[in-house]
């Protein structure tokens, strides 16, 4: 794909002048004439144009007259040139455009009343605008409808061959799942090879289709666009924080549409660096959990052996009574809490306030503990900022991106689209280092496959290679020669050959990666679940910081070490202080100044400094009987953590387990009281996405049944426990946060942060760096267990919540099969569906297998969303000594045919 000079930050395009309707306009050379005209505010109709990709020029609507030419020209495919004299209005042009509409309409079925796009159709608008009332020779196509795909129907009778769907799929998303095919005398859009559609199912083709040729199976024939209420909110599936329009009718969610649409087709191509406005499969088709029949509609109390439905008052009385009794008898530290990062910032803030001022304990944690806190702690330790320093724009405009330990397309599909744009438009060099053959690896310029669990070693190798090749930035390290010497000494024992032998990445590859990273003007490292959710995550992130530091990238604009978050508000959970070590605003819990400030604001004495417990510690204390009551909001530790954590035993010992969740989860089934909570579609609030942008969540429909927003339940609980809280809406909580953390709600723009690396490098860096690069303890367990069993996210699911959405289950059901490389299957002589016995240190399991090309040889994969069969119970847990992050996503196994 060629890049238009106007949008490339590295190319200065020549400014030219041309005349449009008698006015002189300045533009950049080589830009599409249509873009120049639309930048002056004039809208010329165009059906095949969208600013996110290059003009295609098939609809014939954007006609303009150029002086010196007899016939009108198509402005989208014409390039702006100096001295052009253009006329965009006039009766001749109107008639010419009307002819084009008539041409499209003559082969378009006039089935508007039964078409889903009725009222949201560009062809309809154009016919109306141009007053088309008669068609001379209309004919019908009679093409059968393609209903083979699980989510989209293709009715090619209605297609106007504008190719927007093909262009967006190929150029913007780089999926390339659609093509034109001449069939039955007409050019039709068909899935590649005219097979059933099998792609990422992001549905962006549906969003850009200006007519009703591509229709959504979920809302097909249900409602017309004007019948639905449209609420702009933030997606609740991953940390990308995509904006989406939830379209509802009364108490029913009908469909989800994206800001990317044929309706917003005018824009600056450079703006797509901030996001192209599309959604992924989870956002667009995973909305059905909101009004699912499985939602909890009434509070439940355990009576005898059963959970029975009771009114709110009774449930709350019981919960409050038991909480106060346990606190009276055993002190505040007999109570603990867990909350999910799918709650809004306001609720997370309220949760830690409830725990600290209501229950007076510091024993609580959020699901950011499953990995994101590794990054936050490392980044705070090194740079003093607890979040990713770069936003999507930096990522798109980077010249070199090192993607290490991240299956980005599956975990954060829209961040992956940013990297795809960096690859395609800005010609970035993308290095992908992963132990699976990921989608990004297939697109990247430098894909490297490594053995599972050797990400840390690879970073050692990269640091060493950088030093060996002399790619260091003299100016930066000159400021801290002592620290540099210490680093040099620490990596002295690392040999590239050894690293290459252990990781499977060649010495040449290590050197190339180091060179690409060091030499590019804007280079970004993105590490995700392969680093932060694995053992030594904290140290590995610090090693990446070292790499960025010695190459002089730390603190440079457009450079940095980043991570992505799995749940929508993991960053918010950390920022709101939902961790025993943090107060809101990421102030340390032991910092006396911050403690005084919050104690004064909340008018309480905070729990003692140094007290508190994180997730792993809480479960340990539950098991030992120290914690007697647990308040769980939206978390499901029983289904998340492997059996070796003995969560069931820990929860069994509790005197009171209160679970507040929209669904009856495994943990909720063990609870003494279950309080029905709302999903994010039924409440107001904000999420903080992975860039640090605070995004609004809006109430799209009334709470289902008698469920209530989490903040409402927490306020009621706190007031019953003796607090004087007067929150009447989430806005009241927001006002309090605004007072305590000025500038946090920064109008949706991430605060620009300036990393300060000097304090870290001059204090104690030399002491700790040696331990970081110590040679890994050689374990002979590897020999016995030749396969790496990995658990992770798949594109179509997020956590356990998405399994409640029937649409996503239809696209990606739990096959109950272990995914293996076809080569390995051949070696083991098992065919698809054949059973194997999987044995790890923790146990053994019989499971069927299925081939998967994206799984590397010598590894096998099982999606973490499903517990049937309980593959997760084969995992052992390593707890990071610094951050307390439990990692349990990888283990060595033996596989034999059963």
């Amino acid at each position: 794909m060629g890049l238009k000079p106007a949008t490339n930050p590295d190319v200065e395009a020549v400014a030219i002048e041309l005349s449009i309707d008698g006015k002189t306009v300045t533009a950049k050379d080589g830009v599409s004439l249509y873009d120049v005209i639309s930048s002056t505010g004039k809208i010329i109709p165009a059906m095949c144009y969208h600013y996110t990709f290059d003009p295609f020029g098939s609809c014939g609507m954007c006609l303009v007259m150029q002086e010196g030419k007899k016939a009108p020209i198509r402005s989208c495919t014409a390039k702006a040139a100096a001295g052009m004299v253009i006329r965009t209005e006039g009766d001749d042009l109107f008639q010419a455009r009307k002819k084009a509409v008539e041409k499209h309409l003559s082969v378009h079925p006039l089935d508007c009343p039964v078409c889903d796009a009725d009222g949201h159709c560009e062809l309809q608008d154009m016919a109306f605008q141009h007053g088309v009332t008669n068609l001379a020779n209309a004919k019908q196509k009679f093409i059968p409808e393609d209903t083979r795909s699980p989510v989209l129907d293709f009715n090619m009778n209605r297609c106007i061959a504008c190719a927007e769907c093909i262009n967006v799929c190929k150029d913007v998303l780089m999926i390339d799942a659609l093509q034109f095919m001449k069939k039955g005398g007409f050019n039709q859009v068909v899935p590649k090879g005219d097979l059933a559609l099998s792609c990422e199912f992001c549905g962006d083709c549906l969003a850009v289709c200006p007519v009703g040729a591509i229709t959504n199976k979920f809302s097909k024939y249900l409602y017309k666009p004007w019948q639905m209420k449209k609420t702009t909110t933030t997606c609740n599936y991953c940390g990308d924080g995509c904006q989406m329009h939830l379209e509802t009718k009364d108490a029913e969610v009908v469909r989800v549409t994206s800001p990317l649409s044929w309706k917003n087709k005018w824009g600056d191509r450079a703006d797509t660096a901030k996001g192209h406005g599309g959604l992924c499969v989870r956002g667009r088709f995973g909305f059905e959990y909101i009004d699912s029949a499985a939602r909890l509609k009434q509070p439940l109390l355990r009576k005898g052996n059963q959970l029975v439905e009771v009114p709110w008052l009774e449930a709350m009385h019981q919960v409050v009574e038991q909480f106060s009794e346990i606190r009276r008898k055993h002190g505040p530290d007999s109570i603990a809490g867990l909350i999910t990062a799918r709650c809004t910032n306001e609720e997370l803030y309220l949760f830690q306030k409830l725990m600290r001022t209501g229950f007076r304990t510091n024993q609580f944690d959020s699901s950011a503990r499953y990995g994101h806190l590794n990054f936050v702690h490392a980044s705070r330790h090194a740079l003093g900022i607890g979040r990713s320093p770069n936003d999507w724009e930096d990522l798109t405009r980077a010249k070199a991106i090192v993607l290490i330990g991240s299956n980005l397309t599956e975990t954060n599909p829209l961040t992956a689209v940013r990297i795809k744009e960096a690859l395609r438009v800005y010609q970035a060099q993308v290095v992908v280092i992963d132990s699976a053959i990921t989608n990004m690896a297939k697109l990247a310029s430098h894909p490297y496959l490594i053995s599972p669990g050797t990400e840390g070693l690879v970073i050692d190798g990269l640091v060493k290679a950088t030093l060996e090749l002399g790619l260091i930035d003299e100016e930066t390290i000159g400021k801290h020669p002592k620290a540099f010497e210490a680093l040099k000494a620490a990596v002295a024992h690392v040999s590239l050959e050894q690293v290459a032998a252990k990781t499977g990445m060649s010495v040449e590859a290590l050197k190339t990666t180091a060179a690409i990273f060091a030499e590019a003007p804007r280079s970004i490292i993105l590490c995700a679940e392969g680093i932060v959710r694995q053992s030594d995550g904290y140290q590995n992130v610090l090693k990446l910081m070292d790499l960025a530091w010695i190459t002089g990238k730390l603190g440079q604009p457009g450079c940095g070490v980043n991570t992505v978050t799995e749940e929508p508000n993991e960053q918010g959970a950390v920022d709101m202080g939902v961790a025993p070590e943090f107060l809101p605003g990421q102030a340390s819990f032991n910092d006396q100044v911050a403690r005084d400030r919050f104690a004064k604001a909340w008018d309480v004495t905070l729990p003692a400094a140094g007290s508190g417990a994180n997730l792993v510690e809480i479960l340990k204390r539950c098991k030992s009987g120290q914690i007697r009551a647990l308040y769980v909001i939206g978390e499901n530790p029983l289904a998340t953590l492997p059996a070796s954590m003995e969560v069931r035993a820990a929860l069994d010992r509790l005197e009171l387990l209160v679970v507040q969740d929209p669904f009856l989860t495994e943990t909720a089934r063990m609870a003494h009281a279950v309080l029905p909570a709302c999903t994010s579609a039924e409440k107001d609030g904000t999420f903080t996405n992975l860039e640090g942008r605070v995004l609004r969540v809006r109430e799209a429909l009334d709470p289902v049944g008698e469920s209530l927003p989490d903040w409402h339940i927490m306020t009621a609980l706190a007031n019953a426990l003796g607090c004087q809280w007067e929150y009447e809406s989430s806005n009241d909580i927001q006002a309090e946060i605004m007072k305590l953390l000025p500038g946090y709600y920064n109008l949706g723009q991430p605060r620009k942060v300036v990393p300060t690396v000097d304090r870290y490098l001059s204090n104690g860096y030399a002491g700790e760096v040696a331990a970081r690069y110590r040679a890994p303890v050689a374990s002979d367990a590897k020999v016995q267990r030749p396969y790496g069993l990995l658990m992770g996210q798949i594109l179509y699911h997020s956590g356990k919540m998405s399994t409640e959405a029937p649409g996503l289950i239809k696209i990606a059901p739990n096959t109950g099969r272990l995914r293996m490389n076809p080569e390995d299957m051949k070696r083991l002589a098992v065919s698809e569906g054949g059973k194997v016995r999987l044995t790890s240190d923790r146990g053994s399991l019989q499971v069927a297998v299925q081939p998967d090309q994206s799984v590397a040889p010598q590894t096998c994969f099982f999606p973490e969303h499903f517990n049937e069969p309980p593959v997760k119970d084969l995992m052992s847990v390593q707890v990071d000594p610094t951050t307390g992050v439990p990692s349990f996503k990888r283990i060595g196994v033996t596989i034999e045919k059963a």
Partner: protein
Amino acid sequence: MRVTVLIRNILHAALFYEIWDAMKVTFKHMFHKPITFQYPREQRVLPDTHRGALALLRYDDHQERCVGCDLCEAACPSRCIKVISSEDAARPLQRFASEFYIDITKCVFCGYCVEACPVNALAMTKMYEFSTHDKRTLLFDKKRLYEIGERHLDDAKKYLYAHNQEQNVEESREYRYYFPQSVLKPTQSQPKHLG
């Protein structure tokens, strides 16, 4: 002049002229055919354009005409129509109204919905007797509307004719939608490298 007036007045007084004059109307009505209808024993003949109860119609082959396009709901000024449409389970890819409600207590009988209907599924009939003990029965559902349509089919057709919407059976077929069939099987064999 004055004498003639005087004589006339005396004559009128002597012959009770005013009374006879007044009684003229009474006598006229005595021999006149009465205008009052003995409703409900007698029924008035209504013009074809009369806007009475709404009805849903079927085609000759008993298929429902309505495709659930919701245009009647959009056109309704008193917002008394509610349409819920979906795909017909028995006939895949066919859109139909799974539910159709008209709150006749809110209806202003303007006839816009009939005009808006692209398939002439809605028509007005000469039925205007809605009296009931239970107001809830005045929320006409789909079943009731089709019943009215069957009972007053001729009236409905005459209404459409009188309003220049549809003249005969042939014309109704012109508006009818024929939905495409679906492809469920691959149209080509799978390429070798995927096999």
